[in-house]
């Protein structure tokens, strides 16, 4: 990382002064593995090379390319906050590489390239209310920004989390949510799809929570992340209430191979998710002319 592999005048180097790991993966150690929900595990990682660790700074909303040695590489969003948070990733076992990842144990090594992507526009949203809307494992990419916002609580108005999952078994980061709720003025509304024995909370889809939470529309931004079906219904609800298309922000997911804007696998409309995204406003998403 001492040598810049990119163009210093652009992107990551310009905003942070630090170059991402571009071509060759840096080896990281798996310190700890935690089971989150069925099929999802969290891997706590650390760099044996301390020089690299010192220069590895992330922004909320960025992602890394993670190598499982022998299996391949995959793109994964970063849940840790940029400040004072352990470096970790949360991954669902869904394909060849992620299943190989789930078979690993503490002490095994992974490869990391990155961080890549634009990140959430925190500079532009100071003083506003933030509404987080997450469905299932959609909370993973939002976690970084929630922790970050709570670390700078005084910079924002209301902070509201609307979170829905299939069942109480499928709710991510439950200990974290309990911890966040200790913060003054962190409002949470959690729902599951179907009634369940022992569940006293909301039942229904996450878009119905917007009504329940009496979400403020003016001077607010919404960070939305979840499956496409949820995404469309939530957007519809916000637009109906007169929220601006620029204030609805989401992260897109695509097949990625390089992470640096060369392989073109993540092309959406005129943009590349890896370098122009993964964070887009709804106004941008609308003009991409492709499925979400």
């Amino acid at each position, binding site marked *: 990382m001492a040598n810049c*592999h990119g163009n210093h005048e652009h992107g990551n180097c310009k905003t942070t002064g630090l170059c991402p790991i*571009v071509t060759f993966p840096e080896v990281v150690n798996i310190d700890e593995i935690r089971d989150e929900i069925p099929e999802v595990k969290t891997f706590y990682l650390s760099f044996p090379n301390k020089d690299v660790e010192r220069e590895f700074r992330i922004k909320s909303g960025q992602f890394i390319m993670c190598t499982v040695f022998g299996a*391949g590489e995959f793109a994964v969003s970063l849940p840790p906050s940029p400040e004072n948070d352990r470096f970790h990733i949360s991954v669902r076992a*869904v394909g060849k590489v992620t299943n190989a990842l789930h078979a690993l144990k503490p002490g095994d090594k992974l490869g990391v390239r990155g961080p890549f992507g634009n990140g959430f526009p925190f500079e532009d949203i100071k003083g506003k209310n933030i509404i987080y809307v997450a469905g299932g494992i959609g909370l993973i990419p939002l976690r970084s920004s929630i922790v970050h916002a709570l670390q700078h609580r005084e910079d924002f108005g209301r902070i509201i989390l609307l979170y829905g999952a299939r069942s109480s078994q499928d709710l991510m980061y439950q200990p974290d949510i309990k911890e966040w709720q200790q913060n003054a003025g962190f409002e949470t509304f959690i729902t599951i799809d179907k009634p369940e024995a022992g569940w006293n909370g909301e039942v229904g889809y996450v878009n119905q929570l917007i009504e329940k939470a009496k979400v403020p529309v003016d001077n607010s931004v919404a960070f939305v992340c979840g499956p496409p079906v949820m995404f469309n219904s939530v957007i519809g609800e916000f637009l109906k209430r007169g929220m601006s298309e620029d204030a609805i922000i989401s992260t897109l997911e695509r097949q990625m191979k390089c992470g640096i804007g060369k392989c073109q696998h993540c092309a959406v409309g*005129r943009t590349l998710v890896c370098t122009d995204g993964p964070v887009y406003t709804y106004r941008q998403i609308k003009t991409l002319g492709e499925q979400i």
Partner: protein
Amino acid sequence: MSMYLLSAHDISALVTELQASYDVYGPQVEPQTKQVFFDQLASAEALDLAAPIPSMPVKEILFPQMERILKYKYDAQSQSVELSKQYFERPKVLFGLRPCDLSGILVLDRFFLGQEFVDDVYLTHRRQCLLISNTCLHPFPQCFCVCTHSGPDADEGFDLDLTQLKDGILVRVGSEKGQALADAHQWSVASAAHAAEFKAVVERSIDLFPELATDNKAWVAKVMNRITTGFVKPETWEYIGDQCFECGACSFVCPTCSCFNIEDSATACGECERLRMRDSCSFEGYARMAGDHNPRQPVEDRRNKRFFCKLSYPQSKKYLRPGCVGCGRCQWVCPGDIGLPNVVQYIRREITGGQN
């Protein structure tokens, strides 16, 4: 721009001299099948500057079909990993490039080296690389470089440029590296008459272009407008998509197509190499993610991606020219009828209502 006049013997001597410190690539004709390959020259005699356009673009040398970019060993028992990332590349000379292939290299340069990130792998190939182009005196039936401003003569990006004249071979110098090479030799300086003959030769070559090319000249720009602004009707894209066999041949023969896939493949127990191989946006699995979610299922969705890459302004901004260099190879290989010149024709037909 300095110009020199060389004999055929001077050219052979130059090739032999360059071979001492470079891998020299050039067009050569396979004696049995008469196919033209742009490949490494065993000797100066193998170089055939009058050979027709090679069937594969020269990007093969700088951006191979498949290439190893990383090797690693891992051991589950000791939980250790060992990466080896050293690769050595000898400097190269590309001798006798067609102007279309030269433009293709310039497009790849701007894309791989000029965006937010520099592509290290491509840079390794491209570093210390000498480009020597060769003016096309006879266009081939599918050529349309006159429409895309990339031929029949080269006007930027070369170190040296060759043109066959009556008395010998005219050498135009295009860079400091080229000038240094010229200064190291006792080449005779070309006269004003030779410069005039060069112009006439290029004019004659342009006159020889087939009707498809000359007729389409202005339409390429017009079609770029339509594609950029989204004014091409969905029916036209469907008509084009219906003819796509999803074979990917157009991408593999295109001098500017640069999509690639990366895969880790095992070479022994606990040993893997990371391969980067070319990919094509026409393949169904191109955008498919783990969990089988595929945002680009319909073929026309994928097909118009390619033409968007070749003929639209956002993409031209990256390439500093149209993404198509007019070599016509896609027209050659397409089993449907949707080589790029034909796509321009279809959109042209839509605009004029089938009038012409």
